[in-house]
């Protein structure tokens, strides 16, 4: 049989076959697990990051400069050192095989705080002062004035958080052993072991796994392309 660039016959049976196998490779289940994990992780990161970036950028407190420099310094620490002890902590919290193992730890990242703080520093401090004179407190200034103004950078943070969490591979393959609970990336590895001789099925699985980030790109293309230059400190 000769090689054809385009498929000889278009079929949907691969997807039907994959999606109907609910025991050894529950693709649909994995997809939903990934969705729950990535969306929750993104929401947590947004909350935590915008709150602390606000304080490091616009509030005064003792030790602020020192604390922030310390946080920035830890960014150069290689993550691989964390792998084994972090597993023990997850185990101690009884989070093995729980989505929390993937939702929470990533929110410790300092990089996003740096990014949002940079963005905030361009907002005139007079905005805050005017609001204070009108009797607004720090929380009101944060939620009513700053938050609406930092939407663009928060969108970039969300894209990073969502795709990073969706595509994470090593960490979920360590903290998930229960097939029912795992997200799709380690799931695909199981799929590869199971359907080695059925490439069309494997491709269908891979396709399902890339659909969400692909769709996200279609909608937020501009932000994706700008996000990298934002993070490397270049203005495009």
């Amino acid at each position, binding site marked *: 049989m000769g090689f054809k660039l385009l498929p000889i016959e278009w079929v949907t049976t691969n997807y039907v076959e994959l999606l109907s196998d609910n025991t050894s490779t529950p693709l649909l289940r994995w997809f939903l697990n990934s969705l729950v994990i990535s969306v929750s992780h993104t929401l947590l990161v947004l909350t935590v990051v915008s709150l602390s970036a606000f304080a490091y950028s616009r*509030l005064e407190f003792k030790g602020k400069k020192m*604390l922030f420099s310390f946080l920035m310094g830890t960014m150069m620490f290689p993550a*691989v050192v964390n*792998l*084994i002890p972090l597993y023990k902590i997850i185990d101690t919290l009884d989070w093995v095989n729980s989505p929390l193992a993937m939702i929470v730890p990533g929110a410790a990242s300092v990089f996003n705080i740096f990014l949002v703080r940079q963005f905030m520093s361009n907002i005139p401090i007079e905005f805050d002062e005017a609001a204070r004179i009108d009797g607004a407190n720090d929380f009101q200034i944060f939620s009513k004035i700053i938050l609406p103004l930092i939407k663009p950078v928060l969108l970039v943070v969300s894209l990073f958080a969502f795709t990073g969490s969706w595509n994470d591979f*090593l960490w979920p393959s360590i903290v998930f052993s229960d097939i029912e609970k795992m997200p799709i990336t380690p799931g695909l590895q199981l799929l*590869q072991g199971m359907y080695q001789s059925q490439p069309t099925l494997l491709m269908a699985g891979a396709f399902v796994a890339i659909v969400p980030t692909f769709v996200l790109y279609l909608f937020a293309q501009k932000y994706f392309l700008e996000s990298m230059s934002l993070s490397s400190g270049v203005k495009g």
Partner: protein
Amino acid sequence: MKAVTGVNKLTKKTSSINITPWLFIGPHLLIFLIFFLVPIGFGIYISFTEWDLISQPDFVGLANYKEILFNHDSIFYEQFQTGLKNTFLFVLFAVPFCILVPLFLATALHAKPKFWKIFQSLFYMPSLFAISAVVIIWKLMFDVTYGPINHLFQLNTLWLRNQPYAWVSLVIVTVWWTIGGNMVIYQAALNGIPKDYYEAADIDGASGMQKFLKITLPSMKSQILYTVVLTTISQFNVYGQPLMLTGGGPTNSTRVLLMNIQQNAFGSGQSIAGIASAMAIILGVCIMAVASLQFFFLRDKK
């Protein structure tokens, strides 16, 4: 400052410390403490212990480091040496292409050829895919019988089971997967170079190559430094490609250190977390050392 004192009446009464800022940074600090700071300290400690992930770690001093660095008869010595060597080889093979290919594509796109936006999306998109999906796609591409690559070039190469093809495959997959990030950084850098530089060079009769070497590259220096360091750090953490594409083969020649660390700590059988931690720490030290060297040699010397 004047305004602040007016607002926080409540906290002012009880103490001179303003707690409001700590409410803002508290959630992050708590997560940072539990999931970053504590594990790092703990990770360094367990590299000096014998530990199975379950029972109490047993302090053994430098024994783990001695075992993997000097005990020639030990299986862990063997694992560590091969793993670290292969990781370094991978970084050496992959990083130059992960810089040059995006640089080339960014320069090509900068000339705004027809459909450049479509090409930009095509080049960028793979970086948004999960590595396990990427490997599944490429494993099919490299397949010896029905793979498009062998078919297209009329070859019978066993890409994933012979050297140097196994390394070539790993580098191709990695470059394809990571083009996007570096490419858009270079595109932004190119956009930032003032047009008059090139106009002045044109008047002096400079060739295209001269302009690229004397104007374009020097103007992108800080972005190139940034991408070289970040790409190197991320490629040191290579794991998914060799695991799923070559399985570390042929005969362990692409078995990288992270695979051994994962295997020792979390693989089937009893966990050898102490040894695995020592391996992880040395890998971490290597990453920091190489990144600092790059930074030292590539930064702007004035």
